[in-house]
């Protein structure tokens, strides 16, 4: 099957292509240079005047696993507001803040997204995360395994384990969880909460293990780097949401000694303590630090106004914020000597000073970070807003007039505390393509996605250029997934099943003996049952595992 996309204006930042009129060919799901001599084009699409990009990639979105399903259970009223009937092609379900899995897949595809990565896969819950993602059609997926409050790592650290042993354990976890990276959430803090600690600063000790978040971050950042995992350690910092936490964030950046680090939903970690209400924007300082430290990348976790639900591994923080739950109900869990979770519904209001300033801080960060290869477009779905609000967010970034008009409507006190109105920058289509495609693929370590070069998977989105960027990005003309037309005029026309992207770093398998003993002694399951197999992901014939290359062991310690 050979398709030809003719004459579109192409934005492919991985190859420096910025709005060039080009033809693209795809044969059997992969992009090829051209038709072979005498080869017939099976389907041609005339894209004159259209904008062509690779399929978009959401590098941080909560789409699978225990806490997502808890959020669904918690909010039947939210689902009732957005019922989705089945069609001849598509399954029924419901949408809005935490859509059912099928609707998640359809709606991502309908917005031109062809991949999403679940950032908080608890190793003890990894099978569920993959089962849910396995029921999410069309898009590719993957996940980052969560470590840092698991008792195995903390015990190894308090016993001063050799870094090589830590690396082996981290690699084992990536294999067992079928992950493509490692995330750390409130490093050591979820464990500390189980010992009744309520806050944990970067240099404060977990009362049982006498280990600090800084120690955990250093160990894990180094492990991920030395294993050659392309995605840097994915960090949800300490003190989320606390006024003044920008200092924690700056210290975190300084504390990892140059190892690559990805700071997630950084908006929630960029707060100062100035002003009458002791809550202010730290965006300028945070953006300056990102601009200066090339080992750092971040996604924003933009807040947008309306009802949503926050779902996080950080039960220490979620418990602290539970009194803000709206509607007033919440779930917190301590999980399996492995992690935790907290699910708190939330309504962001534009006339609420704090919420309005959070909105402005997110936008300030987007606009003040110079390098679009190191800042990523997320709402931390569903924590800042549901992913379906991305087209609106893109308009805010690309359209200064629109942005300022929105800015003029938020809480006046928040306006007074923000520099947003004076920022001139407007993102270009090329920069949006970097943030949501080329940069995201590079950051996650997807070699054959996020670009339109020869050999890439033919995940392609075609838009009609429109000065109203929200309208443009909401409803692509065509979306191709692995060369198959899956969306036309913003509607699913074919349902396919994407791949699960993983890495499988090399490690010394003898670590399994240590891990197995630990499980036998303290856990309620056998270590071998924790491992998610390829077969469990591929069951029902609807998915498969795609392994991406690791760069091999980098400067192994003695």
């Amino acid at each position, binding site marked *: 099957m050979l398709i030809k996309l003719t004459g579109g204006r192409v934005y492919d930042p991985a190859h420096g292509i910025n709005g060039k009129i080009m033809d693209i060919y795809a044969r059997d799901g992969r992009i090829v240079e051209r038709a072979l001599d005498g080869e017939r084009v099976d389907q041609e699409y005339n894209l004159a005047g259209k904008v062509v990009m690779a399929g978009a990639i959401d590098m941080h979105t909560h789409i699978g696993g225990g806490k997502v399903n808890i959020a669904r259970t918690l909010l039947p009223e939210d689902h009732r507001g957005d019922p989705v009937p089945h069609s001849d092609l598509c399954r029924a379900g419901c949408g809005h803040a935490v859509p059912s899995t099928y609707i998640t897949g359809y709606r991502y595809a309908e917005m031109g997204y062809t991949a999403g990565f679940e950032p908080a896969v608890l190793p003890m819950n990894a099978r569920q995360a993959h089962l849910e993602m396995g029921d999410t059609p069309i898009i590719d997926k993957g996940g980052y395994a969560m470590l840092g409050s698991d008792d195995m790592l903390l015990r190894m650290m308090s016993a001063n384990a050799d870094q090589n042993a830590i690396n082996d354990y981290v690699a084992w976890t990536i294999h067992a969880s079928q992950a493509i990276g490692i995330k750390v959430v409130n490093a050591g803090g979820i464990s500390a909460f189980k010992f009744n600690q309520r806050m944990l600063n970067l240099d404060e000790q977990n009362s049982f293990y006498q280990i600090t978040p800084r120690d955990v971050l250093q160990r894990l950042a180094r492990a991920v780097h030395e294993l050659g995992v392309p995605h840097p350690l994915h960090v949800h910092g300490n003190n989320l949401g606390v006024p003044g936490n920008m200092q924690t964030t700056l210290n975190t950046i300084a504390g990892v000694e140059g190892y690559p680090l990805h700071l997630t939903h950084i908006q929630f970690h960029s707060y100062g303590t100035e002003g009458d209400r002791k809550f202010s924007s730290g965006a300028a300082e945070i953006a300056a630090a990102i601009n200066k430290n090339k080992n750092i990348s971040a996604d924003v976790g933009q807040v947008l106004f309306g009802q949503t639900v926050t779902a996080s591994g950080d039960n220490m923080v979620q418990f602290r914020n539970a009194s803000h739950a709206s509607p007033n109900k919440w779930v917190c869990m301590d999980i399996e000597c492995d992690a935790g979770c907290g699910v708190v519904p939330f309504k962001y209001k534009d006339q609420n000073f704090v919420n309005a300033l959070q909105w402005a801080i997110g936008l300030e960060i987007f606009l003040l970070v110079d390098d679009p290869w190191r800042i990523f477009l997320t709402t931390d779905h569903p924590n800042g807003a549901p992913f379906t609000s991305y087209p609106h967010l893109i308009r805010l970034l690309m359209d200064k007039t629109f942005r300022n008009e929105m800015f003029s409507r938020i809480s006046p006190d928040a306006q007074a505390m923000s520099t947003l109105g004076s920022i001139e920058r407007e993102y270009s289509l090329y920069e949006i393509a970097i943030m949501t495609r080329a940069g995201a693929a590079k950051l996650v370590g997807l070699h054959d996605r996020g670009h339109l070069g020869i050999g890439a998977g033919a995940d392609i989105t075609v838009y009609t250029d429109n000065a109203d960027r929200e309208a443009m990005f909401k409803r692509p003309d065509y979306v191709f997934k692995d060369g198959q037309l899956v969306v036309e005029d913003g509607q699913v026309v074919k349902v396919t099943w994407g791949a699960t992207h993983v890495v499988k770093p090399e490690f010394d398998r003898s670590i399994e003996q240590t891990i197995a003993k630990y499980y036998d002694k303290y856990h309620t399951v056998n270590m*071998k049952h924790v491992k998610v197999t390829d077969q469990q992901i591929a069951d029902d014939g609807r998915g498969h595992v795609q392994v991406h290359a690791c760069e091999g062991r980098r400067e192994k310690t003695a």
Partner: protein
Amino acid sequence: METFAQAATMDSVTCPSCGLLCDDLSVERDSAGNLDVSKNGCAKSITFFARAPHTPAPRVDGKPVDLPTAVARAVEILEAAHQPLICGLGTEVQGMRAIMALADKTGACLDHMNSNGFMRNIQVVQNSGWQICTLTEVRNRVDLLVIVGTDIVSLFPRFFEREIWNAESMFGQDTTKREVVYLGGRDIDTSAGIAPDGRKPTVLACDLDQLPAVSAALRALIAGKQLHANSVGGIKVADLESLAARLHAAKYSVITWAAGTLNFPHAELTVQNMTEMVKSLNKTTRSSGLPLGGIEGDMNANQVSTWVSGYPVRTSYARGYPEHDPYHFSTDQLLSRGEADTLLWISTFNPDRLPPRTDLPSIVFGHAHMKLEQEPAVFIPVGTPGADHRGIMFRSDNVVSLPLDQLRSSALPSLGTVLTAILQAL
């Protein structure tokens, strides 16, 4: 490749007979496929695995037929149905995924055989949420266990062995010093709560239907209120005050219940008293609830239903999109109001869970040993997950899911295979 032809000993076998999902069993297989638990069993698991291999033919109107004929008849019945009810739902995850597809396609209503209990918990989550933990946290952290209205062990036989009187725990605790309190219930077997050193548990007995008052009183005491009574439900207030004080003093208390046992009107409010009590203890110390369940795959049904439809069971696809109602979409309500016109009953783990009596055309997908009281229009025997074929099962805590293995060869199809065949023919 394993052919299951020879006798063998299989280790690290996962048992799906209760929500603890113990995965440390050893099971012996003879060359005929008979299974026998040789290590780490309990009465329930021994019975479960001891059911001999059996391959009865499917039946249509009581007459043996081949599988394609039975499937064809099931398809006819479903095509004539306007409002099917798919209930029982005793299956593993892959079977449940197939059920969801069938429900979507046929506009069916879904309910699980254990929902009367499970919905008590769901209503609490939907109304106020909760703070809970999982089994490995209990095993390593609990210092005070309060058990509400159940002996635990008749439903979850190895609970104390695995989570309370375990010799080793991670944080230097002497597990033999753990305190166990039984709150509510009459003449409960509390022997499993006796510590290895012979120390007896505290027993605060009352009739189950007094639990609403007793749990409300304890909740009030924990919140710091005074009670102007000497006793509640036959329990001395002084004893409840003492328990409240111990809960406040504990480092990590766990309050547990099995919602299915709390069989009295508005038991969800009793569950809520417990979960709100836990929330308030957490203002100063640590405490978690531990809802016990996971029997006959109720966690599988609710997890899969929730991610596929957005709602737990008691969900209807009648209008083409899912709608949920914990009361109106119950099997009892739908049958008594005549709102279902076709019944599908599924029980793959347990031959003893039989469909409700009904005059409606019925299709039963059952355990091979099922002895029906009423012959349905179609009976299709299916394999037992974890013995005849593999699968995935969620544990009581709704977090951990474990693979179920195939332990012997079987000619029985899995539920998923049969439902997929039906779906394709519809």
